[in-house]
């Protein structure tokens, strides 16, 4: 085997041709789109203003691609935040034609629809950092407020684990959906309650509170209830479901909040939360080795 020279894999010519054609098709400029971009530096400018740029866009071009071209070629001062470019880091959420979306996951032509203008603003209900970048300080504080980590009473086991905690697939399924949150802030920005209540914890934090409360490894229900069962907690939500509508990761925070309310109501009627999962003895491993 080793002596055999590794053959370079070559695509069959017809497949290669097809691929090239498809990619050409994808990146060929097809339409001129006008970008209206919100410009505002709260430290310098008296008021926000709009800037317009025209760009030939292709079918595959995302809003983030277009913004980076504009930043590189037309306006170097444009402020925006991005990192992964593939919908994983949650940095690039912004208002694209009036709706919260990830700039890196939205193609320009998809956003423009039949029109030829794409309007870009920073996220609503977030303080403006600069231009399209919003200030997430209070958003992250709200997330931290619900204690998004496993809380347990058995400190000894927690600090010196003897084995993994027991959890079945069904138990895992109760919270898996909410673990996909990338903290992009789109949900809080879309929430009508957050538009008037600055202190509202918001869909992201509340869904994460639910995610940890129903995790069988966790024992923090009572600690978290003092945070979520408050004036600015889950009872402020009236199921406008816009948070779920805009969530780019299918987290469905509105569902989490309703289930959280159900849990709180059940608890008022004497429902006992789950017992925290025990640690599985690490024996299994030891036996195999022996």
């Amino acid at each position: 085997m080793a002596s055999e020279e590794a053959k370079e894999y070559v695509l069959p010519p017809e497949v290669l041709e097809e691929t090239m054609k498809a990619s050409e098709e994808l990146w060929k400029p097809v339409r001129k789109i006008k970008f209206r971009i919100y410009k505002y530096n709260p430290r310098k400018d008296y008021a926000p203003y709009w800037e317009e740029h025209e760009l030939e866009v292709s079918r595959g071009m995302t809003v983030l691609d277009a913004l980076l071209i504009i930043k590189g070629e037309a306006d170097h001062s444009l402020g925006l935040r991005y990192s992964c470019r593939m919908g994983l880091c949650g940095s690039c959420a912004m208002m694209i034609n009036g709706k919260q979306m990830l700039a890196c996951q939205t193609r320009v032509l998809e956003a423009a629809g039949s029109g030829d203008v794409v309007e870009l603003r920073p996220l609503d209900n977030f303080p403006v950092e600069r231009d399209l970048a919003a200030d997430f300080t209070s958003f992250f504080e709200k997330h931290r407020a619900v204690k998004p980590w496993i809380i347990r009473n058995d400190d000894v086991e927690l600090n010196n684990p003897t084995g993994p905690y027991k959890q079945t697939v069904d138990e895992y399924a109760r919270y898996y959906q909410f673990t996909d949150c990338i903290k992009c802030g789109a949900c809080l920005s879309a929430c009508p309650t957050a538009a008037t209540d600055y202190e509202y914890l918001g869909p992201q934090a509340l869904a994460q509170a639910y995610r940890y409360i129903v995790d069988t490894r966790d024992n923090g229900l009572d600690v978290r209830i003092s945070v979520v069962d408050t004036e600015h907690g889950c009872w402020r939500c009236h199921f406008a479901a816009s948070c779920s509508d805009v969530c780019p990761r299918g987290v469905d925070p509105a569902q989490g909040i309703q289930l959280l309310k159900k849990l709180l109501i059940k608890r008022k009627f004497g429902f006992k939360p789950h017992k925290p999962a025990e640690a599985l003895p690490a024996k299994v491993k030891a036996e195999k080795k022996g």
Partner: protein
Amino acid sequence: MEAESEFKEYYAKNMRGISGWFKARVYTIERWLYAAHRITGILIVLFVLAHFYSTGWHPGLWWDALLGIIVTFHTANGIRLILAELGFAVGKPLLIKKPSQRPVSIEGVQRYVVVFALVLFVVLAAIWAYYALVVQPMMG
């Protein structure tokens, strides 16, 4: 100077304020229901205040029918909200998601509940209007 800093703060905070309740165009129908629920709720409180002042006071024929629309909408949608808050018809968290998964809480059974709430609203409002516009005047 004062006015200027307030002006700046307004833009720097970027809060939509009350207009945010009504920014429903780009979202799903639940957002319209949310906005309507807010308005009808506030109007009901205003009416109740007037009603406390004088329990005999009624706005009169057509206004009575309008009051009916307000109250019955708030009732019908309220039932939908209570169901949701009790965890009915919002679906179960998913273990497997499709690429660009749409939320089950609004695109599952909730769709039917919304239709049910709207139908209930129309029926209740019609009954109320019938009483306000036909039966009441007959009885004098």
